[in-house]
């Protein structure tokens, strides 16, 4: 199959030159021009707060209620060596909403990479053709390596089982915009905590903000020791649970992840475990009335569809939030947000 190359021309629409009212304090503090976004651990709490403030101001543009052309003339190279739906589309949407253009591929087959080109050379080429590079790659450390070979900023859109910092930022943005703050909240991470890439970086970031953490998972999929050690260095002692019924009652946020069939040797065992961590209306009855339910998506059956219509369900809002957060990041690293 030939590679899917795509190019979108810049939108020519009536625009605002400036998104809206940025918080001057945050923007003064945030000089991120040319900076790589590789790992959430590279950021301080203040920097994250600044990014989230800017993302908040981007919401009307992300919704199409206002228009902007601040990235007019800028080109994003989106190189996806692995499949992606939400991340890829929301980066594209973010760039287009701010008036920029996009080049790239969504499948490495047929590209120079499949002819034996190193990632370093592919990145040098991307650097020559664009102003900012977004990379998803199956190997851990790929984004750090790309950043080394590019003078232009590199944004990590997921590297193997490693980091996915823009997902973490949109998760934080969702919690903050729904609950008003992050520190002091009781956040319960549920499901596959062992293999789930998003929950490791998220646990780190939540600990930085001083959130109370619960990890609810079957013993074979519980949070790895290195993550537990990591959050303890911020003075957070996470509660470890195997039963969702035990941990749900005082949670402010339920962050649910998918338990994958392939982690279990037999189907019956999978179905038993997956059923024990399913969110439905009966479980919601045991939770706080204002609990919010998040999920990085795609979900399979870990959240019952009947929950979708409740005011607690925030996973589709969370998916939307990828757009304003990525708009904020693109404008910051391109140095055009002021």
């Amino acid at each position, binding site marked *: 199959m030939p590679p899917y190359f795509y190019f979108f021309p810049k939108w020519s629409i009536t625009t605002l030159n400036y998104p809206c009212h940025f918080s001057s304090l945050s923007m003064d503090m945030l000089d991120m021009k040319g900076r790589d976004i590789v*790992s959430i*651990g590279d950021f301080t709490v203040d920097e994250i707060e600044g990014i989230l403030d800017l993302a908040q101001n981007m919401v009307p543009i992300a919704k199409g209620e206002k228009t902007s052309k601040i990235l007019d003339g800028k080109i994003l190279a989106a190189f996806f060596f692995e499949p992606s739906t939400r991340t890829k589309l929301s980066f594209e949407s973010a760039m287009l909403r701010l008036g920029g253009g996009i080049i790239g591929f969504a499948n490495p087959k047929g590209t120079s*990479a*499949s*002819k*034996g*080109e*190193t*990632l*370093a050379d592919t990145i040098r080429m991307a650097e020559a053709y664009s102003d900012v590079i977004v990379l998803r*790659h*199956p*190997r*851990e*450390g*790929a984004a*750090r*390596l790309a950043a*080394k070979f590019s003078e232009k900023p590199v944004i990590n859109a997921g*590297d*193997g*089982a*490693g*980091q996915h910092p823009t997902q973490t930022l949109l998760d934080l943005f969702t919690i903050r915009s729904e609950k008003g703050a992050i520190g002091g909240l009781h956040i319960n991470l549920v499901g596959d905590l062992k293999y789930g890439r998003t929950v490791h970086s998220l646990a780190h970031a939540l600990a930085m903000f001083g959130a109370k953490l619960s990890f609810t998972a079957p013993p074979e999929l519980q949070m790895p020791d*290195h993550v537990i050690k990591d959050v303890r260095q911020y003075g957070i002692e996470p509660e470890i649970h195997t039963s969702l019924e035990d941990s749900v009652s005082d949670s402010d946020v339920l962050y649910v992840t998918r338990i994958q069939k392939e982690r279990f040797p037999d189907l019956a065992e999978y179905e038993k475990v997956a059923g024990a961590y399913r969110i439905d209306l009966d479980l919601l009855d045991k939770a706080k009335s204002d609990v919010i339910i998040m999920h990085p998506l795609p979900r399979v059956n870990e959240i019952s569809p009947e929950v979708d219509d409740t005011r607690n369900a925030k996973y589709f809002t969370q998916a939307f939030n990828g757009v304003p957060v990525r708009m904020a990041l693109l404008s910051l690293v391109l140095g055009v947000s002021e």
Partner: protein
Amino acid sequence: MKEFKVQPIRNGTVIDHIDSGKALKVLKIMDIDETVKSTVSVIMHVQSAKNDYKDIVKVEDKELNPKELQKIALIAPHATINIIRDYDVVKKSRVSAPDRVVGIVRCANPNCITNSKTDLHTYEPVDPEFVVESTRPLKLRCIYCDRELENPEEHLV
């Protein structure tokens, strides 16, 4: 009178204060194997002045190159290097454990980008690089994939 367990060497290098039990690893770092052409003395588990045990390696007609020195500093952070010329110590230095280790250890994570080979079997054009988080026990963290490397001595390049 102090008894010499090993004859002094005329020209070459004496590596002293090697952590007890690590002498054979030092030989490996120096590529000393069955093809050796010079005299090599290995003394293991001898009492040191500080009342603990150490190993010593003496190699005739050889001086260490910088890469070998870095590797020895990793596995024996308290080693001293004595350069001998005509039976005299002409230079004595202590190895220093580095903050960063570049190009002498490979990451143990098979999915790390530094272990990625293209279809043409070439690696990415970077040396594996680690931050030294502690020297005793030796803890290295890959700057690319962020994984801690267990048993770094087993992954020397």
